[in-house]
């Protein structure tokens, strides 16, 4: 048994800890996070950071994981791949972190070969590009790919007699991937795509594109953009077009849902419900609403607590390789979002929701098969 050798010293350390907790607290565990914290991507990056910070504060206040305080070192990559590679080497080389939270497809894909070489676990809870699923054995994604979400939405649309659609997509990895998925699935299901128009990331005036799309008179407008959703809802309302507006999880944006002009918009929703108590605690602690990405990274951080706890109980050192093995062994996690890893991308329940001009209700279930 390879663990035997480690058992006695650990038990002894435990005994000392119990006897004199003030003198010998277990060493803190340091993790890394590489997120866009400045520049246009910072809107989402800071939301993600707050989710991690909140989870860490809660856990550490409860005494950490098996007595270990958890620390996360945040680095800013401005959503740029070269900065991400530099920060990766910094976190792994200087801080010796066994895992890194990442976001955004570009930086994640640039770091993937390094993760494989250095045996560092990467947990992405924000990007949904298809390529991420097979980027590295060490890269795990807690969000389903856009293709999974889109196929659920297409089934719903076709079942409700919608046969023509137009697409408004963000002109970047997330948006283009989603557009391609939708166009492919909708055509395969016998539907017809009448028009598609891009928007730039961070753009908030969509009127010209919307007017052009509306002129094609589609029954459905499929929207895949990550930012500027409230102005989009307002501008859609201004046009009074007769189409059904459908989107993905990106639509889950508290200010947009609270906007009366968003009534009638439907979207797939990766289930990530937080209790009102948790939402309130978050708002109090972090001074912001617990948005979708905060909940996702809160959940991803909980997964890390589970993995670290598991390794502690089995007296294994907290390394990237061990964390990965533990993740594949545990497979199913019951954090904020129940999820199962049968591959590097989690299987997560997906709902279809409708905005009611202030709140949302679930109208169908669209989990991928």
């Amino acid at each position, binding site marked *: 048994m390879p663990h035997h050798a480690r058992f006695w010293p650990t038990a002894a350390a435990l005994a000392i800890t119990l006897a004199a907790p003030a003198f010998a607290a277990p060493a803190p565990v340091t993790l890394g996070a590489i997120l866009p914290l400045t520049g246009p991507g910072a809107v989402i990056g800071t939301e993600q950071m707050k989710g991690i910070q909140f989870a860490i504060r809660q856990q550490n206040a409860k005494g950490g994981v098996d007595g270990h305080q958890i620390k996360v070192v945040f680095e800013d990559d401005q959503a740029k791949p070269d900065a991400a590679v530099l920060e990766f080497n910094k976190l792994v080389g200087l801080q010796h972190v066994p895992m890194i939270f990442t976001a955004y497809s570009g930086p994640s894909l640039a770091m993937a070969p390094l993760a494989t070489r250095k045996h560092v676990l990467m947990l992405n809870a924000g990007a949904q590009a298809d390529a991420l699923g097979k980027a590295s054995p060490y890269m795990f994604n807690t969000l389903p790919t856009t293709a999974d979400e889109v196929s659920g939405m297409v089934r719903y649309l076709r079942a409700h007699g919608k046969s023509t659609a137009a697409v408004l997509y963000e002109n970047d990895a997330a948006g283009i991937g989603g557009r391609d998925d939708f166009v492919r699935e909708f055509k395969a299901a016998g539907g017809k795509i009448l028009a598609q128009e891009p928007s730039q990331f*961070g753009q908030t005036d969509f009127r*010209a594109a919307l007017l052009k799309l509306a002129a094609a008179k589609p029954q459905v407008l499929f929207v895949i953009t990550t930012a500027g959703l*409230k102005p989009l809802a307002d501008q859609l309302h201004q046009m009074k077009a007769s189409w059904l507006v459908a989107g993905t999880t990106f639509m889950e944006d508290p*200010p947009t849902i609270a906007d009366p002009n968003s009534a009638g918009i439907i979207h797939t929703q990766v289930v990530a419900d937080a209790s009102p108590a948790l939402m309130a605690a978050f708002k109090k602690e972090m001074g*912001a609403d617990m948005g979708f990405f905060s909940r996702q990274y809160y959940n991803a951080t909980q997964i890390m607590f589970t993995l670290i706890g598991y390794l502690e109980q089995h007296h294994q050192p907290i390394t990237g390789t061990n964390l990965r093995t533990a993740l594949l062994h545990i497979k199913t996690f019951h954090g904020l979002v129940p999820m199962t890893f049968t591959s590097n991308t989690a299987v997560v329940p997906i709902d279809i929701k409708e905005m009611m001009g202030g709140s949302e209700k679930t109208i169908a279930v669209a989990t991928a098969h």
Partner: protein
Amino acid sequence: MLLLQLLANGIVTGSALGIVAVSFALIYSTTRVFHVAHAGVFTLGGYLAWSLVRAGVPDLLALAGAMAGCVVLGAAIQRFLYAPLERRGAAQLVVLIASLGTLAVIQNLLAAVYSPDILQFPSAWAGHVFGLGGLRLTGAQLATVGVDFAAFGWVMWFAHGTLLGKRIRAVAANPFLAEITRLEPRRVHVLVMAIASALVCLPGVLGPLDYGLQPYGGVTPLLTATIAMIAGGIGSLAGAFFLAIAIVVLQNLSLLVMPGEWSIGVTFAIFIVFMLFRPRGLFASG
């Protein structure tokens, strides 16, 4: 109808960009500084107005307060940054770098204070939709087009009909002569920066009133505005204003004939070709 609505939206957004271009042209033609930090002044205006409205100040007073803030910032940039650089005979590249640095400071200060999230004005009238014979425009859009055209009219009157305006144009036309004829170009420069900063605050507030505020949102409008200024011919304020409108209208209408992902690229391609064949602009004065 589609054509008409695209045209109307283009004129609304274009008039806002036109004021950015006019104010930039005013600065550039007098001080010869490529004032990139103007994008920061533009953004600051929106955030100041947002804070004031949130604090319960009536919308019009908030606009006035934001303009005052922009005036202070613009004059300070001239007085404490560009003027010392000019005295030391700094090269254009150095002044541009200083301006880029100022822009970075303003943007990130706003991002730190207000968060990078897109902020919305709470003013209900801004989102109210008015139907004008088939056209549908929001309150904010109507305010944008009205205020910006009025501001343009005021600038034209000021530049050509007032003594101060003539003095500014004299300094712009020949700084050396202005120096020896006691027109005091340094003070005129501060004044021009103050006026231009107040002007750029108008679209800086009215645009975000329509579609939200972002700390890094000022760069693209400024870049398009500088293109309008150069294509219009430096020194021609009317050229800058109307070309800004023309560019945005064309970008909007171009959607009718090509996919939108190329519209920005095509705008700049046309501009580059244009620079090769008519580098002094369409309405250059002299």
